[in-house]
């Protein structure tokens, strides 16, 4: 079918200027609006909620300390720090790994999920046969992840602290 002459031609033959047709205008408007809203949406989803970030920072800071009491164990702990002079205390790490999720939530005073593990040369550091503390993230909607660098057996290692919900 042959389209009407005026439907395919953007330039009127009997006019010297350029003209726009309604459907072209609508299409461009839709594309522009879609792009705009998408970009806004992307900015929103890449930043976890601030309380997740703040909690992850707090927990990582506590973990990088010797904790309290300084010689705490599972029965006396009030602040579960596991690091002294940037070096991991394996006994304290084992105690940390043995804590239930509820204990962690109480000690770190959060209702978010916590996941803590140490990594060296691509492998998790094992303490008393345990490789982590807390819950592994499972289809999270918000995640804050902080890495801290420390020494394990006099070799640099990484502590991962994940707060998620």
């Amino acid at each position: 079918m042959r389209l009407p002459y005026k439907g395919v031609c953007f330039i009127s033959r009997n006019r010297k200027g350029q003209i726009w047709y309604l459907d072209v205008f609508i299409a461009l408007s839709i594309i522009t609006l879609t792009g705009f809203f998408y970009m806004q949406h992307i900015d929103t989803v890449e930043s976890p909620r601030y309380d997740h970030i703040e909690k992850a920072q707090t927990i990582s800071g506590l973990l990088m300390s010797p904790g309290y009491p300084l010689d705490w164990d599972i029965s006396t702990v009030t602040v579960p720090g596991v690091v002294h002079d940037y070096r991991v205390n394996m006994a304290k790490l084992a105690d940390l790994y043995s804590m239930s999720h509820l204990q962690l939530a109480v000690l770190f005073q959060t209702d978010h999920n916590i996941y803590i593990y140490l990594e060296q040369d691509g492998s998790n550091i094992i303490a008393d046969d345990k490789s982590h503390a807390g819950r592994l993230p499972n289809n999270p909607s918000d995640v804050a992840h902080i890495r801290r660098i420390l020494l394990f057996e006099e070799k640099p290692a990484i502590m991962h602290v994940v707060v998620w919900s």
Partner: protein
Amino acid sequence: MIVPKNKKGWFFTIDALIFATIIFTAIFLYTYEPPRVLHTVNHQYLADDLLGIMSKQVVSDLPNDIFEKYEYNITDVEFRVIEQLGQWWANDDVQLVHDFFLEYTDGLIPEQNGYAALVNGDIIFSSTSPQPRQVSSGKRIVTGVQKLKPIKGVVANARATRITKNSTMLVAMQPQGTGWGTGWSSMTKTFSIPSNITITNAEMVVSVHTDLHVDSRQFTVNGCSLTIPAADYLYGTDGDVGMIDITHCLQSGDNVWTMLLRNTNYNAHSHPGSYIRIDYTREEIIEQEILTKDVHKRFHFDRVESIYDGSSATGVWTTVPFFIPPDADNVGVDIYVKAENVKDYTTSSCSMWYHIPSFIYCQWFWDGASWQLARNFDYQMFLNQGTAHHIDPTPSSTAEYYYGTGDVGHLLIDGTNTLTVYFNTYGDFAWNDQTMWISDESYIDLTYTIPIDTQPFGHVEISQAQEFGGPPEDDKTTSFAFPAQANYISDAQIYLIQRYSYWIDVWAGQTNPPSELVYTSPASRAVPGEIFVSRDHLATQSTVTNFIRVRDQNAGNEILGESQILYTFSIPSQVGFGEVFAEEEDAVADAINRLQDRMGVFIDATQIETNVNAITNVPSLWGPAIIEVRVWQ
């Protein structure tokens, strides 16, 4: 528009297809949520933690694979990792520090982050990707390292143990006098010149008051007869000043300087300005000095002899200055005055006594026109006062007088003290009738204690003489500055040259004209041959000018430009430990160079002792350097 001819169902137009695609794409994208993983808050932690572990870990605890690889490059296994990095950077081992840092941090920084390490702004390692959008930085200070400065090495100090110094000494013949008429006035000064010196120049300056006969001014030094041609005297008058080179006459040890003067029209005497200036170089062995708080100095009188020729009158007088530092404590003085052939005239030979008004005068001398009067004093002693402290109208032929601190201590002053004694002199009119003299056994013993911290230690003392310069003036100012190397100064001495003198005032200070009066004659004609200026009135700094102003209160009594100021200072004969050098010979050479720079033109060190110390692990030695780790996304 596309319309299937045999169907009644739905249809698409190309416009509708495009529209629908856009709508569905938008709905999909809006509803899709990528995983919410946080990266940005890691930056600061990663930078700080990386610096933290490097600050805590000792090199000997490094993982075996890293330690073995860098074992031969490690400076000290007790260093922290961050100190070792700083040391390699200081040694400019750029590749080494890059490789180590890369290996040490392998796997610690997520791939989506970049990072870099810097020392004092020098990039020692940097990731090439990603491009930085957000950057965090952590810093640590490392003391004891500085680029191209070894932190292990040697330092050296140096001490001159044998030196040759250029210095100057002046020996003054004090203003003094004797006989009247045809009798001769003989003055003898004995002085010592240190051993091991080489005299580069010596000059005798005389300021005398005699008649103009060619034989009335006779001088010797060590028997070396010195005649100053009449044409070489400055004025050609009875009071005159002359100079002559005496380099060839002097010797190490005791030297004897005599002046034989006569004034047939008046009385013969010396004026301020009779001195010998000796420029010399001297070799000294510098030994460890034992500081003493107690100072004992003895000032001997010159032998002053008035020679009787059968018709002349005789009598002797002399002036002796001595110096007490302002910071001296427990000052004690013993004065011994001895003269021979003194005559008791005023008591035994007086023909008639007058009481005018409070003194007793004797009428006993007919000068051809009238009877002259004299006080009843055959001996007078003045100390810093215009009135006599002690008189003796009946002296023994061998007259001896002792004065202790209890007698004259209250008359002593800080600075220049002036002692004057007269035997058988009564103004200008009356004299003895036999040869007599003041013995050079006479002395002033001075004792005092001085704070130890004002005593130089490990220093070489240098004296430099400087002429006042300029034309003769009765109010004259000169200036001088100590050299930059001087770090301890002694009191300065002024040696005035005057054809005639009456009453001298001296000011010192750092303004022109100087404002601090440091000396004034205690009486008319009491002008010593040397006047001391305490170092309290002088500035040590080479950038500060010291001004000295001298004025004779009798206008016309000019002070000659050849007058001297002798200032003494000390230059350290040692330098402390300097920079750290990798090689011992470099440290020693540096110490010797620093010592020679400090000694300047005044001292030539002919023997130098050096000490070398190994230096390591001194945190304050260099630096500090700032080590920085940057992490970015």
